[in-house]
């Protein structure tokens, strides 16, 4: 029983990050109709910025976290401005090819800049885990979970209760109508992409100190983010949040009771399964698939 509870606790901690990765991606897909293959690279970028700021420049851990997320926003805005802005009226396949090109270029730029050697980031948290009965969890994971939940809540607030969020939702529902109502679509697109990228970078900056930082770390993160988004239905914010936790539980249970080697296969299997059985995602109310 303790073992099961421990798995659940681990899944909860992991789910926060998956959800954080997922909502950024789902916002970008929902509003811009862009399958963002650079999402994982933004995640890796955030982790590397964290490494550079903390380990190379000696900046305070928490300050560095904020900086890393902001730099992610800047990089996201730059990608949007340079590449996606030219592709507004393009076919989704064309955009995907461009984003794959950007992904390859970014990943290898990271490899070039930081070499392929795995780097670790010192964290200011005590090494001893918190123990409660038979369960234990490290301070660092709790912090990561708390910040992830905070960021998710902030995103919800932004989308549901601000003027900008209203404009985003309007764009999501009907781009042309929103434009006619005076929503500045271009600005909404840039903001959305920058916001999603910032969330991905924040996730990377949070998890960098938990694991090690490598140039290819983004690939797996992107794969999980895609699984989460598909679980929840593309463009569905609540769905992505729940999807993050579902994926984390599926993985933890899979690791605990089947085999640890297939942990990463779980997300892909869920993707295939969901798309076959319920392609609009688990929580969709209306058809979004074209």
């Amino acid at each position, binding site marked *: 029983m303790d073992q099961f509870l421990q798995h659940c606790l681990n899944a909860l901690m992991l789910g926060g990050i998956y959800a954080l990765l997922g909502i950024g991606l789902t916002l970008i897909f929902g509003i811009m109709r862009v399958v963002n293959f650079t999402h994982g690279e933004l995640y890796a970028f955030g982790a590397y910025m964290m490494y550079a700021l903390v380990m190379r420049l000696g900046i305070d851990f928490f300050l560095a976290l904020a900086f890393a997320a902001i730099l992610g926003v800047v990089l996201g805005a730059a990608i949007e401005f340079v590449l996606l802005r030219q592709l507004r009226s393009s076919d*989704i396949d064309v955009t995907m090819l461009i984003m794959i090109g950007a992904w390859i270029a970014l990943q*290898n730029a990271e490899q070039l800049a930081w070499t392929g050697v795995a780097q670790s980031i010192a964290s200011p948290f005590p090494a001893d885990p918190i123990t409660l009965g038979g369960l234990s969890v490290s301070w660092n994971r709790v912090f990561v979970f708390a910040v992830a939940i905070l960021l998710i809540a902030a995103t919800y607030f932004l989308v549901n209760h601000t003027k900008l969020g209203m404009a985003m939702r309007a764009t999501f529902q009907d781009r042309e109508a929103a434009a006619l109502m005076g929503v500045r679509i271009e600005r909404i697109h840039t903001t959305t992409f920058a916001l999603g990228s910032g969330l991905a970078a924040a996730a990377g900056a949070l998890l960098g100190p938990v694991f090690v930082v490598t140039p290819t770390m983004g*690939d797996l993160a992107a794969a999980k983010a895609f699984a989460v988004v598909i679980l929840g239905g593309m463009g569905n914010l609540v769905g992505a949040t729940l999807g993050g936790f579902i994926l984390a539980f599926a993985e933890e249970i899979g690791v605990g009771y089947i085999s640890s080697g297939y942990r990463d296969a779980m997300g892909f299997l869920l993707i295939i399964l969901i798309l076959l059985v319920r392609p609009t995602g688990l929580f969709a109310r209306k058809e979004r698939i074209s």
Partner: protein
Amino acid sequence: MTRWKPVLIIGFLASFPLWLTSPYFLHILITTGIFTIAAMSLNLLLGFTGQLSLGHVAFFGIGAYASALLSLGFEVHVTEDVALGVAPKPVWLAMVFGTLAAGLCGFALGKIAFKVRGAYFVIVSISFAEVVRLVAVNWVELTQGPMALNNIPPLKLGTPDLLELSFLRKPAYFYLVLAIATACYVIIRRLVNSHAGRAMIALRENEPLAMSVGIDVTHYLVLATVISAAMAGAAGALYAHYVRIVDPDIFLFIYTVIMVIMVVTGGKGTLAGPIVGGIIFGLLPELLRALGIKPELQWIAFGVVMILVVFLLPQGIVPALDDRWKNRKRHPPHVKPSIHVGSGAPR
């Protein structure tokens, strides 16, 4: 002239081993040829049916693994006591089997994945390739996992005492790759000019319209996937018995990206496109390496080239050259044929 062009090109390619004696160059040509076959097969899906299949490397890898395993023989335990063993088979049979196995997987994936389209299909195809890769990593009993399958036997035809054709040497293998590439080209050409090919192009151009005139869309998509997968499997089998070691890295997404770049740059939906793209991006890495450029920079360049090609030459090199050629031949510059809409004399 047009009738003799293919013969001339193949003759030119076939002459390579006669004057290029350096094993290094032949090695590059062989790997380029193998990847070109894979690119041609991807083009059938990407170019002619318009489906962006990004799990293509799975078929390449399945072909390689199936062929390697059958030629080496293997034993797996279904349960504790029940074991399933296969004795080593001749290499040519293993290669045929690898091709069929990939085709069968193509059938399964096609049946499953074509329930969705667009971005969803892309993600299903990527997921499929990743699941296959993780199986190759984790099913150590069958695939040796990251330890790789070693000492894969080379292809030999005939019997040692009568007439033996060994494909251990590079010139012989080059001719084998060239022959299979030509066969694939001919099959694709015949296919796209057939009834089935026209149906595929119709559904690429406008799927609802194609359905409305009675084209069984899923049937043709699955057909294209099976043929495409089998060809990629053949390329994989060729690869396995050439490098004679296969590990799970063969399933890495980056190889799919290479194939996509080859097809898109050369010109998707054209017969010559993947060949032109395949040759460019098969030779380019070696050229860059000879110039002392780091592999990371090379990959950055590939990513940038992909972006630039999609922006500047969305149709690819072959259609762009074709247009230029035709324009120069048929029309004097700046005079375009005018089209009059409606009946009666032009106003």
